[in-house]
């Protein structure tokens, strides 16, 4: 049996210890995850400018701690956790400062116009209901129902027990339902 010194994936991926190759590996992974990361941040934060900043912050943080990633196949989960943490910090900071959520820029462009007034009303209702959610519940709803992560994956991504994820999902959906259906809120306060 032989023992090899434990090295990170970043170390192993550059046998000649070239800084350029280290950057190239990270750049490729970052490039591959850029779109999906920004979409996720935009859904959580509901502000395109903040989502850009959050995505950028997350990549910067990931780059700084790149050497700690020991398994390249774990990049998705590893980086996802960084991104979620950045978004959560921003949401909490925003809730303390009470800043206004501006989503107009994100809704500006859309392919063929949908002429259904009811669809537009539905969107507005959901937008308001979603913006009013507790930040922690908002994050697990996006991870579960947009990113299609399992409960356990959400738990890992957010760093909370699975039971807490289920509880936040339940309460998040309940809050949304009440906001979307005021009659229900009156009947089941």
């Amino acid at each position, binding site marked *: 049996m032989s023992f090899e010194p434990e090295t990170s994936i970043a170390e192993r991926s550059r046998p000649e210890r070239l800084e350029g190759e280290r950057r190239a590996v990270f750049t490729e992974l*970052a490039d591959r995850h850029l779109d999906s990361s*920004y979409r996720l941040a935009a859904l959580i934060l509901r502000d395109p*400018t903040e989502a850009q*900043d959050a995505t950028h912050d997350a990549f910067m943080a990931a780059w700084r701690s790149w050497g700690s990633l020991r398994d390249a196949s774990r990049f998705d989960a590893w980086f996802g956790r960084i991104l979620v943490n950045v978004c959560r910090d921003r949401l909490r900071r925003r809730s303390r400062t009470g800043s206004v959520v501006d989503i107009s820029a*994100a809704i500006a462009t859309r392919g063929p116009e949908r002429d259904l007034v009811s669809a537009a009303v539905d969107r507005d209702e959901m937008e308001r209901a979603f913006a009013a959610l507790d930040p922690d519940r908002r994050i697990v709803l996006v991870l579960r129902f947009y990113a299609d992560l399992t409960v356990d994956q959400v738990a890992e991504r957010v760093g909370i027990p699975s039971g807490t994820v289920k509880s936040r999902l339940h309460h998040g959906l309940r809050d949304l339902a009440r906001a979307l259906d005021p009659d229900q809120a009156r009947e089941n306060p």
Partner: protein
Amino acid sequence: MNELETELRLRAWLDEQAELVVPGELRHRIAAIPVETRQPWRQLIGLPSGAGWSAWLAGRRWVWIVVLGGLLAALAAGAALVGTSQSQRLVIVPTTTSPRPSPTPPAAGPCAAGALAAAGGSAAPDTALTVQGPTDALVAFSHPDWPYEVWTAGGGASGARVEAKTILGPSQLSDPGGWGLDVLGWTPDGATLLVSTGSWFATGPADMCGNLYLLRADGSALTRLTDNHPGIMAVGGSLSPDGRSVAFVERGFRPQPGTSGSWTAADALMVSDASGASTMLDPIVPCSGAQLERPGLTWSPDGRQLALPCDASIVVYSVPGGHPTTLRMPADTVVAALAWSPDGRRILVAAPNAGEPQDKLTVLSFDPAGGAATVVSRTTESHEWAIGFPAEAFSPDGRWLVATGYPPGYSPGCDCHSLLYAMDVASGQLRPVPATTDVGPEVHWYPDGQSFVFHEPANPLIRVSIRDLSETAVGTIPYAYSAWHWLGP
């Protein structure tokens, strides 16, 4: 509004919102951020971003004094940050979204004949094929052991009896042998069959090459719709309601970047006319696990839209082109069966929960334009539905659903037998179809939605009335088959 309905609405809304971000624009917007200087400053002193600047400054006149007084210090700090973060800028380099790679160029002309000659040289015994009772339908099937034969039988739309055994050989098909033909469907006039060649299990270009053909039911003519070369095959072929177009997925294998000997598949959605002229609807089908076999590509009744079950969602395409709409499924469900309503305004989906050995079956109704989904019904009993759902699980009028499942109480390894179940879509009520023990999941409906046929190998074709589930033998398929298709009157 219950939790499931809220979830469906939230999913649809999240998907819609996510699509608002254009990837190419996003990349360049992010790339334009001066990452070296802006971010550290914001983090350090808590400055707002974007449009928040003006409001922030308006309430802070002292800022101007501070800015003037500290200008030199700020410039110095900024310069220092620029100098230390050059290597980080490479992280966000704008790149264009990669288009679908071009199909692998032909290595050595069309697909090699391979073992086709050997397969074609062996013919099935001349078995009599009889269709009993009302000869008001057509049956076509292919044989697993004699893979280049297509049999047709039945009365046909004109009432004339058709009975043909078509043997196709190397001179007609130029695809690797051994995989055989698959009968995919009939044109509505009963005159032509859509058939395919090739394998679902190819692992690389060497053993992969498949095409689509239109075959006259009497064997008199064969038209090749695709002209694929090694490494490309056409899968999931589906005839439009008028029989004039064929939708299919062009699956191309190409080397996986950064590996040697590994191959990756990419799917493009195509529509072809009867002459073989094709249009690409989507250069890259947006999922890794498109369900191309069952329920597969499903045309809307007017032939203007296509629904493709795709991972845990359904992608709806306009024909001949247009922005696709993605319909998301609730968590942990799979698209087991799919059908358009007769007026084309709704899509019905049957969905058992994934990963649960026994569960209730939910029928959902989607607006193909992307609106909210509604729950139509849910069974009260839990069943094991793993055996499968027929391609025509829903009746043409959408009132009934047929699926094969094990009775309640099933457990792996038990001495249990599956049954066909008929579900009233409106109420969720299930009824077992008698004498359907361990039948295959293939079912075909008569156009009026009042009856369907199923077949158990070595037994007659059975027609079942949905009203009282009574059964009538209507024909015989003389030997085992790899696929069969029914065309009602």
